[in-house]
């Protein structure tokens, strides 16, 4: 089973929940894995200190124009919907960061002067942290597009056991690309106006993808009841409410899991594990 841990808003505790769940399940003897899909800011490794066993470079195709055969007819740049090619002064210029790797330019070239080279966009590392299988994607600095890396990372999610997929914040393409591979989702939020506003967007995104989701309210007690009222109105299961506690934030700051310092946190994660690792039919999808 693949569980996407998402939130809309950043910094609500996605990574802590995802890592804690993976560790909790492993301690029960279940096969579990933690996969960091937040490739722009991957932080799960800080808490798991995994032993890396495999490392993969992730490349995307980019056009390579053969100057000998190119007649500068401009068909390639006309065909490119992303302005990654420009035909100026009798030659073709490439703007690789705009390229989606679609191959339209090569299809459009009447001289077969466009072939494809590879361009590095990031890396994937995989290994273990104790019994927990680990993988993360890491976007190369300066790269704009996370989705090709995320698409590739899906191939590194173990097929057996429970996979916790740590999503990027927001609701745009990287989140959609991550959620698409999940069987269900946990949306981690906090009971504040920003938390609620971004939770609503995350819920809508999940619904668009027919992904059944439930909610974890983190830092419970800091705001008001608007988030729980919203969940009730929308028929969303609230899997857990984690009380606000400075010692949790302090553990996090050191790169420690809160359950090591706060037994209460461990008990809540235990209940959360019970709640989410059930047959899909039992989960409220609405």
């Amino acid at each position, binding site marked *: 089973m693949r569980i996407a841990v998402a939130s*809309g808003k950043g910094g609500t505790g996605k990574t802590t929940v995802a890592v804690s769940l993976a560790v909790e399940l492993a301690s029960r003897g279940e096969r579990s894995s933690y996969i960091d899909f937040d490739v722009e800011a991957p932080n799960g490794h800080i808490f798991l200190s995994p032993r890396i066993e495999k490392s993969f470079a992730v490349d995307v195709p980019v056009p390579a124009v053969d100057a000998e055969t190119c007649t500068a007819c401009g068909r390639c740049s006309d065909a490119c919907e992303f302005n990654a090619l420009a035909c100026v002064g009798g030659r073709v210029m490439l703007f690789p960061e705009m390229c989606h790797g679609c191959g339209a330019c090569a299809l459009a070239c009447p001289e077969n002067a466009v072939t494809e080279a590879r361009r590095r966009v990031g890396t994937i590392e995989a290994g273990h942290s104790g019994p927990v299988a680990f993988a993360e994607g890491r976007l190369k*600095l300066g790269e704009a597009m996370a989705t090709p890396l995320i698409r590739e990372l899906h191939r590194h999610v173990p097929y057996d056991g429970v996979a916790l997929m740590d999503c990027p914040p927001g609701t745009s393409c990287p989140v959609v690309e991550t959620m698409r591979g999940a069987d269900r989702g946990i949306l981690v939020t906090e009971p504040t106006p920003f938390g609620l506003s971004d939770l609503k967007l995350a819920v809508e995104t999940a619904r668009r993808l027919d992904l059944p989701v439930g909610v974890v309210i983190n830092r419970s007690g800091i705001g008001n009841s608007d988030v729980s009222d919203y969940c009730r109105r929308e028929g969303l299961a609230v899997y857990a409410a984690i009380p606000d506690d*400075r010692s949790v934030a302090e553990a996090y700051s050191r790169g420690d899991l809160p359950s090591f310092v706060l037994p209460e946190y461990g008990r809540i994660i235990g209940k959360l594990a019970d709640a989410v690792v059930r047959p899909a039919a039992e989960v409220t999808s609405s």
Partner: protein
Amino acid sequence: VRELVVVSGKGGTGKTSVAASFAVLAERAVIADCDVDAADLHLVLDPSIQQTETFSGGKKARVDPGRCSGCGRCEEVCRFSAISIRGASAGRSRTREVDEQRCEGCGACRLVCPSGAIELRSVINGEWFVSDSRAGTFVHARLGIAEDNSGKLVTLVRNEARRMAAASGAEIVLIDGSPGIGCPVIASITGADLALIVTEPTRSGMHDLKRIAEVAARLGTPTMVCLNKWDLNPDVAAEMEEWCKGNGTPVAGRVPYDRSVTDAQMAALAVVEHSSGPAAVAVRALWSSVSDALGSARAWDAPRSVGTSEEVGPA
């Protein structure tokens, strides 16, 4: 017109809370929310929308089933698995259809279709707004759910804010950015006069600070750092300051952990409007050092890209 963008790398470090206070403190500023896929600044600024425009950033392919011969060339060339046989098991008719969520609008399918059955149509990806607010003119946007092209919408919002600033004689464009280091972030910091990185003294914050700082350095955008909730872990905070020093990145301010920041958000106010507690005092001091630097931005060299290592790894 000077452009200041507030970013963070890691999400949830307090970007929008800082930006809201800056919006209130800045005189003659146009404010832009460039966190277009999870915008929150409007929840504090309570804008009154004056103008609403639709945003069309991309295209989607569409197959005319009447003209499709079912040859499947389009499906072969599509690299995004966006084209499949119409209907689950379509019997003898093997006409194709497009999954709009997967389609990136590249048009490769249209290029190869021998029947001229495929067209690319512009689609609406979101909306953007020009509003009045108590902090001044506010340009903001809403990317449609599960839509792409956030970078283009960021650029549009930024350009519009700059245009309005020039027209109204405003001196500052204040931009609330998005988390991460990808396309919306690159679109919001490229060419800005100063990027303030709001971070927190955690291992994750440190890791992500290095990544965003390096991206800004490669883009040639000068950066300053704000250590938010710095007293959560004074040891990591000290390490971060040391790193900033070594990197040539000025620390513009330290904001202590203070419940009044959340209380202000609950009251839909900036913390400097809501409280005169320790966080509010620190944010005022932060603004004064950031606005001074903004006046003379480019007076110091942006930290140069570390360059050699592709990756900025764990702390």
